[in-house]
């Protein structure tokens, strides 16, 4: 188990290097960095200061080394809109995003797995048709439109829930439901498939012949084996979850990293954008690691490869 975690930890530096490299290419090589960081009204003094800070007179490879060093120390420069270092600004928003994502994930997971199991156990009957059709429709649904429809219905028409913002648990419902629907349809379809596949495994026949009750077969033998592909899928879909969170936060004015990123782009606050991109990719790597560890706890066979 320990060796497994260490082996997985080793992939983190590769990922971080890739993120830093892509960021560097996009910001320094595609155009004039001075134009990217400063607006047209910048004074010559500001330009000179920026040139020195970014070491633009050095060769590119040296610039890359210095950029990497800055990033590793957590020094992304000063935020232009808040006039404070960029990293603390981003970290301050982390809590709200984690709250939204974890509630949405819990929601998607519970309802997705439950829906998938029901569809599989009632295969080719009405519940299966309804759930599968709903899942395919959900895959075609732009979730940002769903968010807007939810606001129209539950906030503007029925006035049951607030339209946007934060503060109480009522504020969390609509954003969490919107974000959950990014993953829910796929959870239903994958759980359905894996439950159907696991159901024909011989170890279930063995368990049944030993006289195990149906509920024990369900929760001790079938579910642990059927849940792993769902977890693998979750690991692969972390990026989508991040994208969904950015969209959801923007629709509902949720004060997390996503809405901060979008706002910073329009404020041309490049240091905050880089810091946020960086924090989010580290979060994705760690979340993937967590999924791997969870999987190997549920299914010891996973530790071997």
């Amino acid at each position: 188990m320990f060796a497994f975690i260490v082996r997985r930890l080793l992939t983190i530096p590769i990922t971080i290097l890739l993120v830093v490299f892509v960021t560097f290419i996009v910001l320094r090589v595609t155009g004039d960095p001075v134009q990217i960081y400063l607006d047209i009204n910048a004074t010559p003094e500001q330009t000179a200061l920026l040139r020195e800070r970014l070491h633009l007179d050095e060769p590119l490879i040296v610039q890359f080394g210095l950029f990497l060093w800055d990033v590793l120390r957590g020094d992304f420069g000063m935020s232009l809109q808040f006039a404070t270092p960029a990293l603390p600004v981003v970290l301050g928003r982390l809590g709200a995003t984690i709250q939204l994502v974890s509630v949405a994930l819990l929601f998607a997971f519970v309802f997705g797995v439950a829906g998938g199991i029901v569809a599989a156990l009632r295969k080719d009957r009405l519940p299966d048709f309804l759930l599968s059709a709903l899942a395919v429709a959900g895959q075609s649904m732009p979730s940002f439109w769903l968010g807007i429809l939810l606001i129209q219905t539950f906030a503007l028409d029925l006035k049951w829930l607030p339209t946007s913002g934060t503060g109480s648990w009522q504020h969390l419902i609509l954003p969490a439901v919107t974000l959950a629907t990014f993953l829910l349809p796929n959870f239903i379809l994958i759980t359905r498939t894996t439950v159907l596949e696991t159901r024909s495994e011989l170890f279930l026949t063995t368990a049944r012949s030993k006289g195990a009750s149906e509920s024990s077969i369900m929760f001790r033998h079938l579910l642990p084996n059927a849940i792993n592909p769902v977890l693998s899928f979750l690991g692969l879909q972390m990026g989508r979850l991040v994208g969904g969170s950015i969209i959801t936060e923007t629709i509902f004015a949720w004060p997390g990293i996503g809405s901060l990123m979008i706002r910073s782009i329009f404020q041309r606050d490049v240091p905050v954008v880089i810091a946020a991109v960086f924090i989010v990719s580290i979060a994705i790597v760690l979340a993937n690691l967590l999924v791997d560890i969870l999987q190997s706890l549920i299914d010891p066979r996973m530790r071997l490869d």
Partner: protein
Amino acid sequence: MKHSMFGKKLKMRLGGGIVIAVILMAIFAPLLAPHDPYDQDLMSRLIPPFWNAQGDWTYPLGTDNFGRDMLSRLIYGSRLSITVGVAAALLACTMGTILGMWAGYSGGYAETAIMRLADAQLAFPDILLAILIVAAVGGSALNLILVLGLSGWTVYARVMYNMTRSIRERPFVEAAVSHGARSAYIIRQHIFPQLIPVLTVVATLQVAQMILQETALSFLGLGLPPPTATWGNMLAEGRDRMWAAPWISNLSGVAIIILVWGINMLGNGLREHLDPNQRGRQ
């Protein structure tokens, strides 16, 4: 076959029909649109669609906040979605197929480097790349295609890698090698043709994903700047008028869902048609 609500033929016809209809609409947009999609008329702002009592048949689907005709904007909006969706999927497909086949066929360092890169890219979703690029150089159709294409290649690389590895072990490839065929020849003549059916299905379904992502990026303001008529832009504009003019965002949402659902249907139908393993199973 009992599982599907309807068979693969109906799926392909229905999905294909929707896709062809939208493509024709995009091509003949100037002939079909009743108005200029950019023509502002502040006297006829926020007119609701015809089914509403205040509706007006001059503007069948109503007008937006600047008095622009919704129907014409929706027709023109299909152009960007289809162009970006198809071009990005083609770019991702070409890149992923070549890299995946290379990794699977040659093994060694190429395999390690390519597949590690694909893993590492999981932590760098397209939306982050889009945010960086728009922050640096601004939004344009070409940037959207590049962003979505460069982040979409890993799907193909994984599929092609696994399939190439299993095909490489098959007797007919061994026979070709023993006849002295060169790698490039074997890949072109023996391996690639085997991959085409899977590739078609993955690419079709990916166009749907690409279109959803394009509209999402446009919605966030990371696509083409306004006043360009794109479905994502229109949805974003409608968001600010949710109470007074819900039809602006809802009509754009319906347009997106029809096209994406059509492509998904076509892709699922193709999958059932082309993949013999799926035929008996579902």
